[in-house]
């Protein structure tokens, strides 16, 4: 796999600082097209290791599209065409000899709407471990399921009904189940696409607390519509506008001293 020298990139459109001291993932000059329509224009940024990076911006600005490039979920869309350099631990994730299946085991994803499988809670969490053959016997699998549920803060609520269907849980519990399911595969990065947008404030608070704990072990990128949420959970914030990365920097800087007029307008609620 080729090692890329990733630091030298000319920035013409983004203000602030896109670089991280210890980058887990680096993206340089990413362009994404749906057919002939360009959805992402020349985006470059780093995801800092064991920190939370929030991607914010108005609807349709391409933040979800960008997130889905990071574990090659856009491969499933025929008309989607991606160029640029995407590296995980200095390895090109779009290299020809890289298997997207293995990549997705390293870069997990939590979706906007909770989407547990119509299987039992246990089978939901065990799904990834089973397909990747992570465990050798039932006892080990039980262990993985229990620790994953514990890390997702769900174990105490469901320990007596692991055989019940996952779809029978409340919305917030379902989303934590999806997080547990993702954790069970032991990924290095977790991508979250508006994980709390379908949840009530209490469930949202629980998820946010969870994200804060998870960053100890995982590198997290989260797309969110809520600026308060970005301010609460993230260390770095990237502001997208019409497919371009307008500004990126430390979260407290972005929210207190935005450098770009567009960022300022957005976070002060003048539009978006």
């Amino acid at each position, binding site marked *: 796999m080729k090692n890329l020298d990733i630091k030298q990139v000319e920035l013409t459109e983004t203000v602030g600082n896109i670089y991280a001291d210890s980058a887990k993932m680096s993206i340089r000059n990413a362009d994404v097209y749906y057919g002939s329509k360009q959805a992402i224009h020349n985006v470059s940024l780093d995801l800092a290791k064991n920190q939370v990076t929030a991607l914010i911006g108005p609807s349709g600005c391409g933040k979800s599209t960008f997130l889905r490039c990071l574990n090659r979920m856009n491969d499933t869309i*025929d008309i989607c065409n991606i160029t640029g350099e995407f590296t995980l631990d200095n390895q090109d994730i779009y290299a020809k000899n890289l298997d997207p299946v293995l990549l997705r085991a390293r870069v997990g994803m939590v979706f906007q709407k909770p989407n547990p499988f119509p299987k039992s809670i246990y089978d939901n969490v065990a799904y990834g471990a089973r397909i*990747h053959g992570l465990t050798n016997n039932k006892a080990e699998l039980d262990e993985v399921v229990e620790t994953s549920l514990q890390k997702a803060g769900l174990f105490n609520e469901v320990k007596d009904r692991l055989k019940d269907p996952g779809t029978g849980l409340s919305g917030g519990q379902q989303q934590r189940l999806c997080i547990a399911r993702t954790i069970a*595969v032991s990924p290095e990065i977790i991508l979250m696409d508006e994980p709390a947008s379908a949840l009530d404030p209490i469930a949202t608070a629980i998820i946010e607390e969870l994200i804060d704990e998870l960053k100890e072990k995982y590198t997290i990128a989260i797309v969110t519509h809520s600026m308060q949420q970005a301010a609460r959970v993230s260390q770095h914030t990237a502001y997208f506008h019409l497919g371009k990365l307008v500004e990126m920097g430390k979260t407290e800087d972005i929210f207190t001293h935005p450098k770009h007029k567009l960022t300022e307008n957005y976070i002060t609620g003048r539009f978006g």
Partner: protein
Amino acid sequence: MNSPLLFTVLLCLTLFSYWYGMKRSLKVAGGNEHKKNLTCLPQQFGLLTAMVCGLPALMTLLIFNSAEQLVIEQLFTTTLSANIQSLSSIDLGLYLNNIHSLASSEASKTLLTNINSSNELAMQEQYKAASTLQALKQQARWLKTALVLVIACVSVIVLIKKFSLTFPARQKSETIIRGLLVASSAIAILTTLGIILSVLFESIHFFKSVPISDFMFGTQWSPQAAMRTDQVGGSGSFGAIPLFAGTLLITFIAMLLAVPIGLMIAIYLSQYASAKLRAFAKPMLEVLAGIPTVVYGFFAALTVAPVIRNVGESLGLSVASESALAAGLVMGTMIIPFVSSLSEDAISAVPNALKEASLGMGATQSETVIKVLLPAALPGIVGAILLAVSRAIGETMIVVMAAGMAANLTANPLDSVTTVTVQIVTLLTGDQEFDSPKTLAAFALGLMLFITTLGLNVLALKVVRKYREQYD
């Protein structure tokens, strides 16, 4: 007026009353500019008026039409002279037929002249009777026309009298529409019941001459009925087991071919194929379902069966020239599109979120299909298979041509067998008396077939309910 004309007039009246109801409601409101005063829209008044005009009149027309024949017959018979009324029922029927054909073939004037010109007394009497019948029919027609039109007009007038600003036209028309919907579903259920009952009664008739245990557990099928009491070989045996065994054997072979191939086609088309290929391949596949079964039949008999025989003989097996295997394979080919098309719909209907969740955790595409998509689509897939099975069980033409008529009780797919539907066809085609056990056996077979498919359906539903993974 005759019925089609009356029906057309009634339709026009209904359309007119829609307009009339609207106008009247506007008048009640005090003009177009005050229509806000009405609790319901003028169109709703119109709709209600139209329904009130059309429905009762239409109902009367239907009831009248169905009762007309019977009542006229009754009335007419009482006018006949005593010596004709005392005829046996068969002779009376013949006589009545005669009169009916006279009445419908001759104009009333010719009949009257014939009465006077005819010199035979019997003929004179017949012409007189025919004339009476014509008069009766004429009266009935007048009565019908008057009744229908009066009912239509009177119900509209009665309704319009009740119009006021707060008249609940919307609620009333909703109630009527709901009633119509209930009636439609009742028709479907009643038709099914009617079919079951008619088959059941004929079967009971059959079981009077052949014991039910002989029919259900007998292993010999040679449907013969004696034309004369002293006929040699006139007693047949009616054991249905070989027929059902043959049906199940052929169906099993067909499903063995159609289910795996159909499912794999469905998976390929829904998950792997490009949109372009799918747009081309799906209609092409459905062409398979559109080929007439007779064409499949001679394909099976002339192409597939000889190939199977040649291959079998080169392997040292003895193959009948008409084999269950040939029929089953061709039937399987025919029902592939049933399985593939409906299964593809079921798989495509699984929410994309589930697929993405699985792929997002590093599952391969085939793991996603097997572990997530197929379980979630199971009810639809089982439905598709069930439809294919009932299609296979009911299929007749291919079997007639490729599997033969010999009712062998065998599990060897290289033998010739026959199926229930084929036997029903052979029992009922040609000149048959409808009260001999031979023809009645067809109804008993039909009943058994019905019970079998019903049982299969219930079983499959149970299986689905147990193993389905319900997504919402």
